[in-house]
C-alpha cells in the first residue's frame, strides 16, 4: 500500500530539486518511471535475444556455403591441379552474388580472386575467421554488377566497406585459399533492430509521460479535492462529504466508505452534543435545588430550630444523592455502551434473573396496589442460558419493573377493597414472563398502564428523554437508555410493543448453545 502525503501546496514554493523530490512522491509519476524502466529492460533483453538467434542462424548458413564452396574448390584441385583451381576461383569470382575468393601464397602474392582489400593479418591465419572483418571487392567483381577488368590494388571510386566472415585453408606448395561470405546483411539487420529498440522505447516514454500527464494529474486532482474536503471536515464541518465523481472506480468506492464513516461520526457527534446538553440541564436542575436549599438554610441558620435544621440537611443530602445517582446511571450507560464490560459476560440463566426481580418487587407492588404476575411455567423446560451479566440484567429488569410501577395506574391500597366496578374488572397488573424461541428468548415486562405512543418508542430509549413533560414523577429519564444499552451489550435488543393497553417491554437475547 502506498500512502500519499497530500502536501501539494508546499511543492509550489520548493526549489527544482525539492520539486523533483515532490514529483517522485506522486504515485502515478513513480509508477510511470518504474514501468518505463521495466519495459526498456525487457525490450533490450528481447531484442538482444532475437538478434543473437538471428545472427547465429545467418552465421551458420554462411559457414555452410563457405564449406560447400571449399569442397567444390578442393574437388577441382584434385581433378586438375592448381591450374584448375585457379580457373575455378576466377570463374566463381565472376558469378553474380559471388562470395569472397582469394588464392595467395605465404609471401602475400595473390594469384586469383576478387578481394581488393582486407585486413592483412588475416592472411597469416588458417581456419575459420568468425569475427566479421571489413573488406572491399575488386571493381569488376562488385556484387551484382557487370564485370570490369582490373588488377587487385587498382584505385577506383571508394566504396563503402562491407564485412564478411571467411575460412582459410592451406594447399600444396605453400598456397592458401580464402573463401569468405559477405556478412553485410546481418550487420544492417542489427542496426535496424537497434533503431527499432530506441524508437519504441522513446515512443513508449512519450506515451507514458502523456498518460501520466492526463491520468496521473487527473487522479492527483481528485486526491486534492478529497484533501480539501477533509480539511473542511477537520475544520469542524462534519456535514461535509467527500466528492464522488460517479465513475464508480476505486476512488469513488473509497470516498463512499469514508462518507459512510463520516455519517456515523456525525450521528455519534450529534448524540454526544445532545447528551452534553441534557447532562447540563438534568444535572443543573438538582444542583440548583441543592444550592438554593443550602443557601436558604444558611440564611435561616440563627433562627431555625435543631429539628428544622436537621430536616433541611437531610433534604440536602437526599438531593445530593439524587444527583450522584444520575451521575452513576450516566456513567454506567456510557460504560455499557462502550462495551468495556463485555469481558464480564458469562452464561447466565435469564429466567432466574427475571424470577429474582419478580420476587424482589412483588411486595413493593403489593404495597402500591399493583399485582405482579410471574409465569415460571418455563422453568420446567430448563434454564434459559444467555451470555450476559447477571448484575446488569438484574438492573435492566428492575428498571423496567420500576417504570411499570411508576406509570401504572394507582390501584387500591391493600386491605381497602375497591368499591368501584371498573377497578375490580381491570386491576393493575404487571406480568413478567420469559418467552423461549429456537435461538432467542425474551424477558418480558408487560403492564396495563397508560403505555407509550408507538411513535415515541425510538425516542424513549435515548438518554434523558421523559415523556412526562412536567417531570412530576421522580426519575432521571435514564432507565430505558440503560436497558437498551444492556440488551445491546448482551447481543440482544430492547423491543417495545403495545400491550393493549399498556406497554410491553421485552429484552430479546440470543440463547447460548449450551
Amino acid at each position: 500500500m502506498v500512502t500519499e502525503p497530500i502536501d501539494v501546496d508546499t511543492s509550489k514554493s520548493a526549489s527544482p530539486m525539492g520539486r523533483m523530490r515532490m514529483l517522485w512522491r506522486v504515485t502515478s509519476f513513480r509508477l510511470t518511471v518504474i514501468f518505463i524502466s521495466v519495459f526498456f529492460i525487457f525490450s533490450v533483453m528481447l531484442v538482444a535475444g532475437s538478434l543473437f538467434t538471428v545472427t547465429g542462424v545467418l552465421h551458420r548458413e554462411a559457414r555452410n556455403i563457405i564449406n560447400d564452396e571449399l569442397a567444390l574448390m578442393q574437388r577441382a584441385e584434385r581433378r586438375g591441379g592448381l591450374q584448375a583451381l585457379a580457373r575455378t576461383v576466377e570463374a566463381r569470382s565472376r558469378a553474380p552474388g559471388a562470395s569472397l575468393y582469394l588464392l595467395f601464397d605465404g609471401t602475400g602474392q595473390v594469384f586469383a580472386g576478387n578481394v581488393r582489400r582486407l585486413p592483412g593479418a588475416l592472411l597469416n591465419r588458417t581456419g575459420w575467421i568468425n569475427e566479421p572483418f571489413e573488406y572491399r571487392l575488386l571493381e569488376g567483381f562488385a556484387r551484382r554488377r557487370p564485370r570490369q577488368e582490373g588488377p587487385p590494388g587498382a584505385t577506383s571510386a571508394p566504396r563503402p566497406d562491407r564485412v564478411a566472415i571467411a575460412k582459410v585453408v592451406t594447399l600444396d606448395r605453400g598456397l592458401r585459399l580464402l573463401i569468405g561470405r559477405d556478412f553485410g546483411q546481418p550487420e544492417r539487420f542489427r542496426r535496424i533492430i537497434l533503431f527499432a529498440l530506441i524508437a519504441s522505447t522513446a515512443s513508449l516514454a512519450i506515451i507514458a509521460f502523456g498518460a501520466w500527464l492526463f491520468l496521473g494529474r487527473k487522479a492527483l486532482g481528485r486526491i486534492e479535492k478529497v484533501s480539501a474536503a477533509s480539511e473542511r471536515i477537520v475544520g469542524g464541518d462534519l456535514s461535509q462529504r467527500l466528492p464522488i465523481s460517479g465513475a464508480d472506480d476505486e476512488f469513488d468506492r473509497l470516498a463512499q466508505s469514508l462518507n459512510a464513516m463520516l455519517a456515523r461520526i456525525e450521528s455519534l457527534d450529534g448524540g454526544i452534543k445532545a447528551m452534553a446538553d441534557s447532562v447540563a440541564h438534568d444535572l443543573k436542575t438538582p444542583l440548583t435545588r441543592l444550592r438554593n436549599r443550602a443557601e436558604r438554610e444558611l440564611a435561616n441558620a440563627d433562627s431555625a430550630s435543631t429539628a428544622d435544621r436537621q430536616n433541611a440537611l437531610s433534604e440536602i443530602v437526599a438531593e445530593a444523592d439524587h444527583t450522584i445517582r444520575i451521575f452513576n446511571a450516566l456513567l454506567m450507560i456510557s460504560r455499557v455502551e462502550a462495551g468495556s464490560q463485555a469481558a464480564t459476560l458469562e452464561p447466565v440463566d435469564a429466567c432466574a434473573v427475571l424470577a429474582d426481580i419478580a420476587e424482589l418487587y412483588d411486595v413493593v407492588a403489593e404495597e402500591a396496589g399493583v399485582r405482579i404476575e410471574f409465569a415460571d411455567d418455563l422453568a420446567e423446560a430448563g434454564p434459559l442460558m444467555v451470555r450476559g451479566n447477571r448484575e446488569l440484567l438484574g438492573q435492566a429488569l428492575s428498571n423496567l419493573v420500576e417504570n411499570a410501577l411508576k406509570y401504572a395506574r394507582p390501584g387500591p391500597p391493600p386491605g381497602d377493597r375497591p368499591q368501584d366496578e371498573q377497578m375490580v374488572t381491570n386491576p393493575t397488573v404487571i406480568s413478567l414472563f420469559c418467552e423461549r424461541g429456537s435461538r432467542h428468548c425474551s424477558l418480558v415486562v408487560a403492564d396495563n398502564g397508560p403505555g407509550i405512543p408507538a411513535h415515541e418508542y425510538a425516542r424513549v430509549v435515548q438518554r434523558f428523554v421523559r415523556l412526562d413533560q412536567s417531570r412530576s414523577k421522580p426519575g432521571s429519564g435514564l432507565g430505558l437508555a440503560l436497558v437498551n444499552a444492556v440488551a445491546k451489550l448482551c447481543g440482544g435488543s430492547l423491543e417495545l410493543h403495545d400491550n393493549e393497553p399498556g406497554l410491553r417491554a421485552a429484552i430479546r437475547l440470543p440463547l447460548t448453545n449450551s
Partner: protein
Amino acid sequence: MRILLIEDDQDAADYLVKAFKEAGHVCDHAADGAVGDTKARIGGYDVLIVDRMLPKLDGLSIIANLRAAGDHTPAMVLSALGEVDDRVKGLRVGGDDYLPKPYAFSELLARVETLGRRRSPEEAEMRYEVGDLTLDRLSHEVHRDGKKLLLQPREYRLLEYLMKNAGQVVTRTMLLENVWDYHFDPMTNVIDVHVSRLRGKIDRDFDVPLLHTVRGSGYMLKA
C-alpha cells in the same frame, strides 16, 4: 476497632479519621501507596480501607501483596470507578468489600464494622439468638418467645443476615448485596418494604421491638 485508611485525598482522609474516631474507632492514615503498604505489612489492624488509585503503589497491589504474604486482614476497596467489572477486579485480588465513591459515611461505617467482626468464628454458629428470638440454621426454624414463626424463604435469609450482624447497622445496599446478591441501586424503597414485612412477622405480636430502623443508615437487630 483499629482501622488503617490508605487514601491520598487529604480532605477526605481528615474527615474519615475524625468520623471514625467519633464512632469509637482508632483510625490510622497513610497518604500514599508505599506508606500504606508498609503500615499494612506491620499489621495490627482489624480492617484496611484502601483507595484504588494511589500515588506510588495502587490499592489493589497493596491488597494483593498482603494476601500473597498470607495476611488476611479484611480489606475494603474504595473507588471512583463503581462499575461491575471494577468490583469484580477488586474482589478478585482479595478485597473483601467494595464501595464506589461517592459514598455515605454511614454506609462505609456499617460495612467496615461488619468486616471487622468477620474474624470472629461466627461461621460455625448453627444458632443465632437475639433476645427471645432464635434462628436455627439447620432446621431453618425461627422461634420467638417459644412461638414458631412462619417465614418465606427470602424473609428467612433476610432475618439470618440481620441476626448474623446483630447489634450492628446494616444498610439497604448491604441487604440487597447479601440477601439478594445484586449490587445495583433500586430507585424505589424495595428493601424497606421487605424489611417492614419481616418486622410485621417478628415484632408485631410482641411487646419489645427487635428490628430497629437507624435513621439515615439502615437497620439494626438488637435486643
